[in-house]
């Protein structure tokens, strides 16, 4: 082993760097080579910034700026001027992106105008006109949100608000209908009362024009005499008034007339920044919620005229004793709690677990700003995201929580899943890495977040318990790039020393992600170009090697500096250990997601070898048969297909009298002959109810009258009945 390799191996094993042949990476401002193209994010067209479109609870509630612009260009940038329009509008998009990245918080329409006014100062006339046309083609508006620390909570609150708005509309529609119908019942009762029939009231009902034409006193006297017997029970009146009162007092949704009626109770807030507070509020409000749900249920029965005191009073006495079911809760607002992993104390953590193990409609945004923070235990393991990732894994294990884990860079792609989680009946956990630890790397949050996802440090997935019974329907992992590989592989092109274009496939591993973080600089060492040798191998390759003796290869990665000059950087073993652990965790996710399922693969291998064995035996048997010309052996007859079970009809003797009841067409002929002998069953079809209730002659007469000929008179029971001989002859066709 030459001296250079020896120094590299020593660094790999110990993390100590002899300065003469290895350089520190601090101050070199290196970043993973694959990031070379993302130096100026605002120059790129990608998912961000987003436009948080108001008033939509579907997939369009969040849209990307570039998506909106593309949509507009599709309609506007046509014909000969198409190219020019496209150029102009894309220039504006760039400006909007720069404004958003600079932290300007404004609605899309305002940002457009601001960007346009900046650019049109220097541009020609067609520019303003092109922008105007494109702007007219965009029908959406809303706050613009860039991929920054605030994005996760902004996006979630936005989606949550849309879902709640829908619920509020549905609620008001329901309550409005119920209240109207209940009032109608009270009104109808009033119309029937003495007061309702008073002369004064009758006069008022007729109106001014013909007020003098009638004698309302006489009318009132007349109507009073005809008062209905079944008076409206006072208990019902009270019940209905109580229901209306409960509707009026509820605080779960803002009252529709809150503006005009300042006395209306202040609506509850459902937005929280602490799990404990959200839980407390949920519990405190439960009695009121039960009262409201009960009132709605009773109101439906009242309106339908179905409320029966003897039955329902007792039932509703007990109502809600065991809390409310998810169906009952579903029409009411969901709680949204936004917490930050960095500030989560032990108590809060316990409350969070309590929420997740409950069935309450509480949605939690668990925002992680730094997945590479130092382990609080200070142990020998680094804590690359393990602690924070645990929460989502644990929540999945509970089986009833909607779980979504995603870097903020991927949230736009996950927008419909976000919405589904917000609409889920039960607790939901949104574990989001914001990438805001970027200060440690000098990278923009978007890149940091994207790198975390790409390197499997923070894979994106969702688990939806309502999507089906099995993992295949519930678990979704495909959003990650190249999910069937350990690490995503990308081709990287660069110019070598001979100015030749070289292209290489490189895997983006956890180590590449960590390499961008300055706090971990000590685990890396830059190898001077002169000392690049064959002992430097890519990280992913080194991970596949088991160390059985002194290593002769050292894991390395490609990085670039500010001037996009390529560096080779080696890594110490500790980080390689981390990468191995990360890969293991990724493998378990893959299994859950049905990729490289170990059980299935084992089964497949077993089946395949069994099949191969069978084929081998068959080939042998075939060969043996060909050799011996055997006598033709008849193939055993295939077993006869089982015939469907035939319903058994009761065995009848020709002597017995009977009716083929299912065929009776209820024509009344037989029952007219003798009502006691022939009767109808519960389906109103005839049968012989009492054979002794009549004569044989009547049996025969009925059989003759029966048009569908389903009455069989049998043999006479009384041998002394007169005229039997003739009757028997008449009965013959019906035996």
């Amino acid at each position, binding site marked *: 082993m030459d001296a250079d390799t020896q120094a590299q191996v020593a660094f790999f094993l110990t993390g100590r760097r002899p300065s003469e042949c290895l350089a520190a990476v601090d101050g070199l401002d290196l970043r993973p080579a694959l990031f070379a193209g993302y130096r100026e994010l605002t120059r790129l067209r990608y998912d961000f910034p987003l436009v948080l479109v108001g008033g939509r609870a579907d997939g369009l509630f969040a849209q990307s700026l570039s998506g909106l612009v593309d949509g507009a260009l599709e309609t506007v940038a046509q014909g000969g001027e198409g190219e020019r329009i496209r150029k102009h509008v894309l220039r504006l998009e760039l400006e909007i992106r720069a404004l958003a990245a600079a932290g300007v918080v404004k609605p899309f329409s305002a940002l457009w105008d601001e960007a346009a006014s900046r650019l049109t100062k220097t541009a020609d006339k067609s520019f303003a006109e092109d922008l105007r046309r494109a702007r007219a083609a965009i029908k959406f508006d809303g706050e613009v949100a860039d991929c920054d620390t605030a994005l996760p909570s902004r996006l979630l609150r936005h989606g949550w608000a849309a879902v709640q708005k829908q619920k509020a509309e549905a609620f008001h*529609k329901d309550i*409005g*209908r119920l209240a*109207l119908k209940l009032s109608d019942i009270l009104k109808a009762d009033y119309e029937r009362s003495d007061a309702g029939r008073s002369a004064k009231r009758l006069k008022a009902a007729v109106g001014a024009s013909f007020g003098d034409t009638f004698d309302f006193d006489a009318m009132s006297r007349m109507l009073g005499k005809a008062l209905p017997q079944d008076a409206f029970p006072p208990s019902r009146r009270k019940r209905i008034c109580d229901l209306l009162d409960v509707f009026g007092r509820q605080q779960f949704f803002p009252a529709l007339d809150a503006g005009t009626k300042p006395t209306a109770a202040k609506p509850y807030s459902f937005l929280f920044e602490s799990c404990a507070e959200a839980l407390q509020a949920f519990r405190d409000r439960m009695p009121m919620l039960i009262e409201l*749900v009960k009132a709605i*249920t009773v109101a439906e*029965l009242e309106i339908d*005229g179905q409320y*029966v005191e003897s*039955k*329902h009073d007792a*039932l509703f006495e007990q*109502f809600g004793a*065991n809390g409310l*079911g*998810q*169906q*009952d809760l579903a029409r009411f607002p969901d709680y949204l709690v936004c917490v930050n992993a960095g500030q989560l104390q032990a108590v809060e953590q316990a409350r969070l677990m309590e929420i997740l193990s409950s069935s309450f409609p509480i949605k939690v945004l668990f925002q992680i700003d730094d997945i590479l923070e130092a382990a609080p235990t200070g142990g020998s393991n680094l804590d690359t995201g393990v602690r924070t990732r645990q929460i989502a894994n644990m929540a999945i294990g509970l089986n*009833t929580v909607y779980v979504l884990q995603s870097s903020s860079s991927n949230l736009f792609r996950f927008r419909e899943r976000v919405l589904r989680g917000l609409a889920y*009946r*039960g607790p939901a956990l949104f574990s989001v890495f914001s990438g805001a630890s970027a200060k440690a790397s000098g990278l923009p949050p978007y890149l940091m977040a994207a790198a975390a996802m790409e390197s499997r440090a923070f894979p994106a997935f969702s688990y939806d*318990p*309502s999507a089906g019974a099995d993992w295949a329907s519930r678990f979704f992992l495909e959003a990650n790039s190249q999910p069937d590989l350990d690490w995503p592989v990308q081709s990287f092109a660069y110019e070598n020393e001979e100015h030749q274009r070289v292209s290489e496939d490189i895997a983006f591993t956890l180590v590449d992600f960590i390499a961008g973080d300055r706090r971990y600089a000590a685990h890396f060492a830059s190898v001077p170009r002169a000392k690049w040798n064959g002992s430097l191998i890519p990280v992913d390759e080194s991970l596949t090697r088991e160390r059985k003796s002194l290593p002769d290869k050292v894991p390395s990665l490609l990085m670039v500096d500010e001037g996009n000059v390529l560096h080779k950087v080696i890594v110490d073993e500790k980080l390689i250990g981390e990468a191995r652990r990360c890969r293991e965790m990724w493998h378990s996710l893959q299994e859950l997601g049905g990729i490289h399922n170990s059980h299935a693969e084992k089964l497949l291998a077993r089946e395949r070898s069994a099949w191969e064995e069978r084929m081998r035996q068959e080939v042998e048997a075939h060969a043996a048969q060909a050799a011996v010309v055997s006598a033709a052996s008849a193939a055993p007859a295939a077993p006869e297909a089982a015939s*469907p079970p*035939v*319903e058994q*009809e009761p065995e009848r003797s020709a002597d017995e009298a009977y009716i083929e009841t*299912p*065929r*009776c*067409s*209820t*024509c*009344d*002929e037989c029952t*007219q002959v003798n009502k006691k002998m022939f009767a109808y069953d*519960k*389906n*109103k*079809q005839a049968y012989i109810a009492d054979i002794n209730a009549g004569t044989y002659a009547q049996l025969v007469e009925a059989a003759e*009258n029966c*048009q*569908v*000929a389903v009455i069989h008179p049998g043999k006479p029971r009384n041998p002394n009945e007169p005229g039997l001989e003739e009757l028997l002859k008449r009965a013959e066709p019906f035996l």
Partner: protein
Amino acid sequence: MAMNIMSTTGCLLEMCDERFELEDYQGGVPRWCTGCGDNAILAAAQRLCRDEGLRPEKTVFVSGIGCSSRFPHYMKTYGFHGIHGRALPVAEGVKMARPELTVFVNTGDGDCCSIGAAHWIHAVRYNMNLTVFLHDNKIYGLTKKQASPTTPIGTKSNTTPRGSYLEALNPLTVTLGVQNVSFVAQAVDWIPEVLFDIVKAAYRHKGLSFIRIVQRCPEWLPDMFEPWMRDPDKVQLLHHDDGLQFSASLSRLYKNQLRHDPSDLNRAREIASSLEPIPVGILYRNPDVPCYEDLLRSDKLRTPELTRAVLDAEFDKYTIRPQGSEKMQA
């Protein structure tokens, strides 16, 4: 999870629901002739109400005029014994005003196909959620034997003493020819098992379900159905996985069966035109045709304020001039 599971409250409430027996639907004692096929239709309707748990106060039978139109009197539900030929428009009005009610229509071949023919065509096109029984005895029964549009050619009656001259109208093919048709079936009163299955399928179909029931009138046409009564092969039962399935005992008697897919409209028209044997079963069913009442339904709550505002807006279109002002105008 647990998305479509019935809530505990729902279960408890259902336990409080009333259960009904056949007697709960039996109104007055029928005045139909003994042997009249209408009895079988009444039995099937009452059985349907019981089996489906239809609440009598939420169920309406609407009819026109004729023997068959006496039907509502014999049901202990709400009913409307209307005027000749107008059963369908009355039923449509009921359904429009009270969409939550279950509405049935009983109409005779005279009532529906003669004086009420215009209403029939448009009711099919409007496809409101009604179940229509066409009691087709091929004669005017109540008025004592006048030829109806469905009376077979050559039948002697009080209006056609020398035998009717015209080919009978086929209510099935006519209905199947109307735009928006969504359910057409044919039953015969003398096979109660199939009659009931058809009535049930019709009730469960959302849209206008039209059942033509071949109904015996022993009073005026005692021999008309003799051949069918004697020979089961003159009836062809239509079966399909998406249609009716018949019991083994029924199949032993009625061997003439045909597999027919009720979604096939053209084939349905072909089968419907057969007079010999007569097809019995579901000819056509399309659950996707929208119902008129749904198309028209509005989310707006009809509050007294809304009603007043709409009326006021309407009245504002007219100006009331002070008396004598017309003269000044002229």
